[in-house]
């Protein structure tokens, strides 16, 4: 018998992990699922299979491409499932959703493992127990929030669930709310490590959960507390950083604006980019120093929304496409082009890469040459997740066929909290408070013109730094006092401001859907953008497209003798 007794080599059993140290390590594993990424045999994959980007934690596909902020980009035949996602013509067998679903439920599974072992383990102080459980439930709340906003009806699996094949017939908002509430009440205000969730992050997320459910009063109350008293895990009072770009720069991250962020690293010793923003590896300009792959190109519709009125520095909320920003469609890089000269919100050039404008310290974006196929993806490049050249050695990771970087993915940043709070205030009739919050967000730009994008001292040597010449004609002002006249008008302004502040951060589509304006906004976008690029032509958003299909694969897997346990969302 001894001869035949072989253990599982190179692995641990759960008994070994059922103490504070083991649970702590399982909790780290639960954080590690935030990025949804894995590397198998050197290849980029999502947790549980599928391409890594399909499980994007920043939702560049599911929030920005679908939300009209970005094109798929690249060339038409690359990653074709995104074409269907971009035109709202997906069917349930589109593998992207299955990948995202699996990665998120792996996150849930890891948090449940923490909670299950915690209930069995002894010799853990109440304080530690509350902290560990609070973090686990915060993370579980996050994973379910992602599932909820994408798929709406999803099964709730927690640490006590034995059979994981259960129906998706119950609204899980109350469960998500309970997780964040528990985390809010049990987590400390500060943590030893900045990457951990603290009570204020849980509070902000709880507010967001209320807001998504239309519970404006509850949302307002908690946001007020968060805004007034909130601190980051490392004890900084919440605030807006002077330099907008510092939210997207690895050197300055985990600052006072970072409420909760997914920590990314570069050159972590794995010789992979599995922990280095792998899900965005496709989203760099093509034929450029970044090499690959030309995805995730901002839309003309988004760029136009940064147009401001020369006279008052305010946006054209109702008709921003009437005076489009000049682009370089069809103009080769060696042909002359001069960029737009009219008044623009300075956030544009921290959000979008466009021709003849400094692309961080990489030189002017050359237009055509860095774009894989203008006719389908348009003329622009993304910018918020692009690392700086002077950081390339430290914060970029070149150990795969496309770059990785150490720039955190912001799940919630303070500007987001302010704009969510503005919504809650506007919905509850406090128009002045709402306006105050919106103006706080705009005011950061207004008050810090020194941090607007400048031209290079020497365009031939972009690393030499920036002159004091602005890169474009920037002009932004706060909305005047009393600008909000009705809930409806205030909401319109808040929605607009939210788009331009948080563009290319994965929020847009989910915001449009929860506001109930997706059909109108997105069909207008398709109509406008379709005149410029071919990729979105034929797109049509209808009322069922606000939630993605439950992955067909999961419905098939749930099938028992009595039929499928999971039910498909309407319209698929």
């Amino acid at each position, binding site marked *: 018998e001894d*001869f*035949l*007794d*072989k253990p599982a080599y*190179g*692995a641990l*059993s759960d008994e070994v*992990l059922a103490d504070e140290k*083991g649970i702590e*390590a399982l909790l*780290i594993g639960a*954080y*590690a699922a*935030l990025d949804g990424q*894995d*590397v198998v045999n050197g290849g980029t994959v999502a*947790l*549980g*299979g599928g391409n890594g980007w399909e499980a994007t934690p920043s939702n560049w596909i599911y929030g920005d491409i679908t939300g009209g902020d970005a094109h798929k980009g690249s060339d*038409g*035949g690359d990653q*074709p*499932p995104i*074409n269907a996602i971009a035109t709202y013509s997906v069917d349930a*067998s589109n*593998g992207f959703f299955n990948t995202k679903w*699996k990665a998120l*439920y792996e996150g849930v*599974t890891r948090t449940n493992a923490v909670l299950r072992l915690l209930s069995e383990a002894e010799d853990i102080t109440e304080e530690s127990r509350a902290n560990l459980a609070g973090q686990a439930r915060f993370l579980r709340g996050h994973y379910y929030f992602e599932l909820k906003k994408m798929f709406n009806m999803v099964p709730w699996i927690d640490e006590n669930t034995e059979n*994981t094949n*259960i129906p998706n017939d119950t609204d899980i908002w109350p469960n998500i709310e309970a997780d964040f509430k528990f985390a809010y009440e049990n987590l400390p205000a500060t943590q030893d490590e*900045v*990457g951990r969730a603290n009570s204020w992050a849980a509070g902000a997320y709880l507010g967001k959960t209320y807001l998504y459910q239309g519970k404006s009063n509850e949302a307002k109350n908690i946001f007020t507390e968060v805004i007034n008293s909130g601190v980051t895990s490392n004890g900084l009072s919440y605030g807006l950083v002077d330099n907008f770009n510092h939210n997207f720069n*690895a050197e300055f991250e985990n600052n006072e604006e970072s409420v909760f962020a997914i920590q990314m*690293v570069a050159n*972590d*010793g*794995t*010789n992979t980019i*599995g*922990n280095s923003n792998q899900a965005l590896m496709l989203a760099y300009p093509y*034929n450029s120093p970044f*090499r*690959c792959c030309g995805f995730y190109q901002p839309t003309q519709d988004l760029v136009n929304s940064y147009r401001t009125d020369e006279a008052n520095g305010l946006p054209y909320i109702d008709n921003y496409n009437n005076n489009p920003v000049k682009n370089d469609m*069809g*103009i*080769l890089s060696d042909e002359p082009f001069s960029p737009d000269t009219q008044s623009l919100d300075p956030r544009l050039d921290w959000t979008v890469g466009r021709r003849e404008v400094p692309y961080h310290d990489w030189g002017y974006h050359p237009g055509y040459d860095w774009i894989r196929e203008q006719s389908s993806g348009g003329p622009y490049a993304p910018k918020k997740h692009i690392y700086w050249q002077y950081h*390339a*050695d430290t914060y970029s990771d070149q150990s*795969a066929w496309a770059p990785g970087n*150490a720039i955190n993915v912001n799940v919630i940043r303070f500007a987001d909290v302010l704009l969510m709070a503005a919504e809650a205030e506007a919905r509850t009739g406090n128009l002045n408070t709402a306006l105050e919050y919106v103006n706080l967000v705009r005011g950061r730009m207004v008050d810090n013109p020194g941090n607007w994008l400048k031209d290079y001292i020497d365009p031939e040597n972009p690393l030499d730094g920036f002159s004091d010449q602005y890169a474009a004609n920037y002009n932004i002002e706060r909305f005047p006092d009393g600008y909000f006249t009705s809930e409806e008008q205030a909401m319109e302004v808040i929605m607009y401001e939210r788009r331009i502040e948080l563009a290319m951060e994965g929020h847009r589509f989910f915001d449009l859907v929860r506001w109930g304006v997706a059909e109108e906004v997105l069909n207008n976008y398709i109509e406008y953008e379709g005149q410029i690029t*071919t990729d979105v032509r*034929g797109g*049509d958003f209808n009322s069922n497209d606000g939630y993605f299909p439950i*992955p067909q694969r*999961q419905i*098939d*897997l*749930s099938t*028992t003798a009595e039929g499928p346990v999971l039910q498909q969302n309407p319209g698929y």
Partner: protein
Amino acid sequence: VVLDAENGMPVPSANVIEKGTSNGVLTNFDGEFSIQVPAESILVFSYIGYATKEVQVNGRTEIEVSFEPEAAALQEVIVVGYGTQRKADLTGAVSVVDMESMNRQPSPQVSEQLQGQASGVTVTSSGQPGEPPQVRIRGINTFGDSSPLYVVDGVPTQDINYLNPNDIANMQVLKDAGSASIYGARAANGVIIITTKKGSGDLKVNYNGYYGTQMVPKGNVYDILSPQGHADIRWAAMENTNPGEPITDRQYGSGAQPTLPYYILPGGASQGEVDESNYFVDPNYTESGAVNGFNQIIRANQQGTNWFQEIFNDAPIMNHDISVSQGGEKGNFLFSLNYMDQDGTLKNTFFERYTARVNSQFNISDNFRVGENIAFALSNGNRVAVTGENPINHAYRSQPIIPVYDIAGNFAGTQAPSLGNSQNAAAILERNRNNFSKTSRVFGNIFAELDFLENFTARTSFGGSYSNTNGQVFNYPTYENAENTTYNQLTENAFTGYNWTWSNTLQYQNNFNELHDVTVLVGTEAFHNQYEEVSALTQGYYSFDPDYVNLSTGAGTQTNSGFYTEDALFSVFGRLDYTFNERYLLGATLRRDATSRFTNPRDGWFPAVSAGWRISEEAFMDDVSWIDELKLRGGYGVMGNQNNVDPANAFTTYGASRVSSYYDINGSNNSILEGFLRSRIGNPNASWEKNINANIGIDVNLFNSKLQVSADYYRKDVVDLLYNPELTGTAGVSTAPYVNIAEMKNSGLDLSATAYFDFTSELQMNTTLTLTTFENEIVNIADGVSYFDQEARRFNGSSIVRNAVGHSVGQFHGYNIVGFWDSQEEVDAANQEAQNALNNPEAEYQSDIGVGRFRYEDINGDGVITSDDRTFLGNPNPDFSGGLNIEFTYKNWDFSTFLYGVYGNDIWNQVKWWHDFYSSFNGAKSNTALYDSWTPTNQNATAPIQETGGSFSTANVPNSYFVEDGSYLRVRNIQLGYSLPNTILDKVGLDRLRLYVQGANLFTITNYSGVDPELTGSATAFGIDEGAYPTPKQIILGINLSL
């Protein structure tokens, strides 16, 4: 003189007796004899292993007799599980391989040579030297590893790549439960028993050698467009996609017609426009950002680069084999040395192997023998991946306007803009040149045999193998591609495998009353196996000089990894063979295996019974003189399979992964902290796959054994098939446990027929046909799971292969194309019908419907194309496969040819996805795409309208466009040999000297449009061509020499 009819060799020590007398002599070493007999007498020739032959003397003084060894087939002793049996007494389905015919195929791999040589065995191999072929006995028996068990000199193993084909004395394939089930838990995929040579007779020295050239197809193998054609198709696609809009392009300029540039980097530059003195590239750069400072200049190759020919070249193959052997009463020995060197036709790929063998036996006394068989093999090779992104794939994706080299002789590539993202395949292979994988392996056994109490024989054998593979890959930074890798790194790995098998058997054999022949065998066997992997990687080398580069000389990140596993088996087994009166045969085997891989229960029983009836021995057959042998056989039993499960399957485990469970909780930006995840969900109740097999066979020898036919029909029910049903996503992504849940069934017919023709005493011919058919059906996969899909390739999310209940494994699945949409009216009409059917005014018949695109078949007739309209498009399993061997001998000449064919299988030609659709990445396109795609004036086209974007209605989903008939007939081998006559040999003191010339794989008849229809794959997904390594043609000169 007495000669062997098959090979013309003299038969020494044969009995020659005058019929009806005791007057007799033996033949001498040269088969010669001399006897005094009356002129009208009859001589009777006999010898063990040959049919007795009677010859009328008719007054002749010289008589040449050809002994028919085939008749001896009945007397022939066959090695079966743990023993031997007369072929006549066989009750199981056993194919005996004709070693001589098999050895004619010039290959280092025994298993590759086996193709078409044994009925019931299918072998597919790649053209890449050293690539282990895929061997299937009676089709696919499991979703996992379907490779057979090999038993070499009594020692089980999974790997015979180290074997020198010339060392093999005989080879038997055990196909049914009756013959194989004595190997119990490892028998289900069939068993191949190999016995290596022993010395016999006088001291012999043999030398066999050959040298040859291997050739690849010439010309425009992939039917790729010229550079001008690529410019034209870009214009056509742009115009089709955005009619009337002006076209601009970085390479081809703008305007109504494209113009070919003089330079492709800088893109589209014309002659004189570029100052070539500004060229700067450092191909061995070490700073990842350095590539941004390069100024590479590449001239267009307006004539076009033939990328296939750039990477494939004719290559040599050679083999030298020498053996020394002797045998006698005191024992025997054989010593052999082999050197095999096969260069690949793909640049810098090769396989070379040295093998040494010492087999010896010492007869210590009349009843006690000890001996050993041991082989040592050293091999070295460099191979490319057979599937996925490999140099072949990049070669057919590269546009011909790209030259191999830039103006300074560095590599050129898609760094030149707008020419796609393929990599320079010649560069990949050049950078691959110092990579290798070296294996050393010792394999063998020692044994002792004791005969006692007259009827008993005890045998013990201890054997096993120790093997070590170490490999090295250096990755150079690239600069010439669109998507460059900017790091350099060295990866080294070492795999060490060690296993041993200790077998003990006791055999009792007796004959009672000349009627009852009984053999009983009992035995035990213990098997222990361990395997270890170590792998390490270092980046950041100052110099890429291979003499400098090792794991410690790099300045960058170092990583390492390891793996260890162990498993064991303990078995007891027995067999009973009983023959009554030479005509009624009964066999029974039983084995009990206990394994470390399963816990509850740990052991399993594998019984089998078989029976035979030699009808030809019955009295009523005495008058039917043309039937020499007629035997009916049948067997039933259970074979097991434990391969398809990880040794850790029983355990729920937690582990750590730096990429997926570590996290930068400190926000450090450059370091990660250890975290755990649940890595595996265990199933303590997993058990063997059970292959319940019924076999019925018939053996017939006719016309004095001039015609021998053996046919078997079988049916296998594979139950408790191990499958790891994907868990619902809600269970997390831990490795799902294997459970005994699936079921499949196989049936088929194996047929082999051999015929001998003696046209004259000098011109003889024999021919052997083998035929293999099998049908496979998946009966069950898992509760609620009716299929599992594989191979998404470029169709992210939808798969090419569906393994579904009610179908065979590996079938292709997707939308069936019924034509093109030839006009907007057709589109509108179809949409209108869809709108009526769905009562939805916005409905479309199919997504992305458009003129010139594919029209899919509405399988379920609901008026609209949905995922339910996908159907089975083809089956990669052939209806049958077969080999035909024909040999002629005329005086000292011999000629043989071997044909192999496969009929009725389909191939998924994924190369077409790259070539026939402009939208499928901006790479090389085919003549079909430009000249035979749909246009309003060419509606009877092959390919759809060419557009810049792919769509559901063209190339974004698997559809029937990619399915082709994969049947082929290949002349595997033609050989012409000449043996020098004895008169000359005697003078120079040689026994034998034969020279031959041969051609291998010279012709292939197929309708398949790809490079090679012979394609490998996994057990459940195969027959997919995304750039196969073609089997080369070979022209070879060889020599066989004996002293």
